């Protein structure tokens, strides 16, 4: 992912401003599109990094979502970041500074798990539940990690890339048989 300082236009909020000093030392950062900076913490650094951003004036956790990079394990990442299959992407917003940061944490391959942000941003609760529901990424410390969009007894996590679409025609609660 190269620097895109030449890109821009009326259509999108495309200004790339390098604000790498935003992130504490030790965390890999890079410029990001339509966002001030993207950080690539390790799983251990993740919670502390978000906490430092929160103390730094990022009041709102605007988005948490997951990505399954099964087909692109060798995707371009900044130096020092080992890509895993699952990635959790958190977008934080600062109202006072009018800035956004994106945090991309490599969540793991087989049993993806990252820390929950619930203690910092209770508003991440539903978003993390959705990510768990769709990808099976566990959020340790989440108070109520249940399925949110799919029925409770759904098999598998639908947004995973190895989840076959149209494999099971209908899958719902056990219907009572004919009497």
């Amino acid at each position, binding site marked *: 992912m190269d620097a*895109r300082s030449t*890109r*821009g*236009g*009326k*259509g*999108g*909020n*495309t200004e790339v401003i390098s604000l790498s000093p935003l992130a504490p030392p030790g965390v890999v950062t890079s410029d*990001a*599109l*339509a*966002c001030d900076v993207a950080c690539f913490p390790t799983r251990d650094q993740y919670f502390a990094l978000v906490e430092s951003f929160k103390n730094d004036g990022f009041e*709102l*956790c*605007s*988005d948490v*979502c997951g990505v*399954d990079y099964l*087909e*692109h394990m060798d*995707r*371009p990442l900044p130096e020092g970041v080992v890509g895993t299959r699952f990635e959790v*992407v958190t*977008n934080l917003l600062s*109202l006072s500074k*009018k800035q*956004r940061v*994106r945090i991309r944490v490599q969540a793991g391959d087989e049993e993806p798990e990252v820390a929950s942000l*619930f*203690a910092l941003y*209770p*508003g*991440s609760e*539903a*978003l993390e539940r*959705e990510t*768990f529901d*769709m990808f099976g990424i566990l959020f340790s410390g989440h*108070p*109520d*990690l*249940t*399925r*949110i*969009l*799919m*029925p*409770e*007894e*759904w*098999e*598998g996590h*639908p*947004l995973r890339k190895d989840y076959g*679409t149209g*494999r099971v025609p209908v*899958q719902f*609660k*056990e219907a009572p048989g004919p009497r």
Partner: protein
Amino acid sequence: MTEPTVRTAERVDLLTAETSEGAQELRRRRDTQTDELGRELGAVLRVNGLNIDPNSIDYERRDDETMIINMGPSHPSTHGVLRLMLELDGEFVLRTKPVIGYLHTGMEKTGEDLSYVQGGTNVTRMDYLSPVINELSYSMAVETLLGIEVPERAVWIRMMMSELNRMSSHLVWMATNGMDLGSTSMMIYGLRERELILAFFEKTAGLRMNLNYVRPGGVAADLPDGWQDDVQVICDTIYERTFEYDQLLTGQPIFRQRMIGVAPITAEEALALSVTGPLLRSTGVAWDLRRTMPYLAYDQVEFDVIVGTYGDNFDRYAIRLNEIRESIRIVRQCIDMMPRGDYRSQDPKVTPPPRARIGESMEALIHHFKLFTEGFHVPVGEVYSAVESPRGEIGCYIVSDGGPKPYRIHVRGPSFVNLQAVSLLMRGGSMSDTITVISTIDPVMGEVDR
């Protein structure tokens, strides 16, 4: 070939144990841990600095004093298929848990199978009350990845259509909110005014709803001849009628009693719950992406960001009513300042050749065919693009792997996030206020469940 799935009860139990962490329902009081009770009373109460009041948990309350009832999923005032589980103490609500997913159709998964050209038809159906704004967020994300410039006229058309859409969305809100409070006349008035806007949408884009009008690179069609007059009539009519709503509702004693001071939320709580849009502005936080992080040409028009003071139902009502007026103000400026020129980018990568060229040029035909079968390739990258929808910040996160289809498309639905405030807002209110709370949060279930 995998073995056919046998849906026996044991297998369901096994799968539940494997893939689920438990039930989504609200549990009985005696089955619930203390901290869980505290959380359900309003997640916010556990944030640092907003310490929980031990008296408000009342976990010593016996189970037989309260009653858990189910509201929805198909309750007329839940604006769709929202299911609320309410724990009641007599007439008063103690705990609330929204259970969602009844309208989940896997639109994000579908989006991975649609090319960037087709993607707009998918996102436009998420929040079906503000299709233009959904498309805008999606198109801006794709354009940012492509790095293409949108012509000036397209920018202004997009802005005008977004504001018309915001008006129509708020009018539906006025209508349904009136309906929830028993004013059936408001229901009819709101939908009547909205019809003016939808008629203009039909004239411009060919469809009343789910327009697929804003596309990567510009808009689908230029504004129709004589659009200035149409839009002027819409603005004049609706502006005049907002004062009729004032007469009908704003000063109405019953309406005021049911709205003023009901279900307040503070700015800290709203921010902690990631709430955006009118719900956040009602607490006095002047956060409107149109003003604070301007996109399109919002920095060139004059408008006010409406904020409330108390964060109660009435503030949310007043904000939406006044945002209709502000949108009219923006649309009027758009009429005056609409530039001439192209309505879509002339970049042949994203824009098909004009219809007239297809009949006479083989290359144009091939180009058109390739664009609509294969689509265009988007450079590798990922982007989150957020715009202000009538309900708050709608964000579109796209990961591109260089192909003609998004590798991952995620939409941050404002109503999905705002719905988290339900349990906090309903706490301590009476049963009848739950209706007004759902109404003033203004969830669109198509966007909540996607």
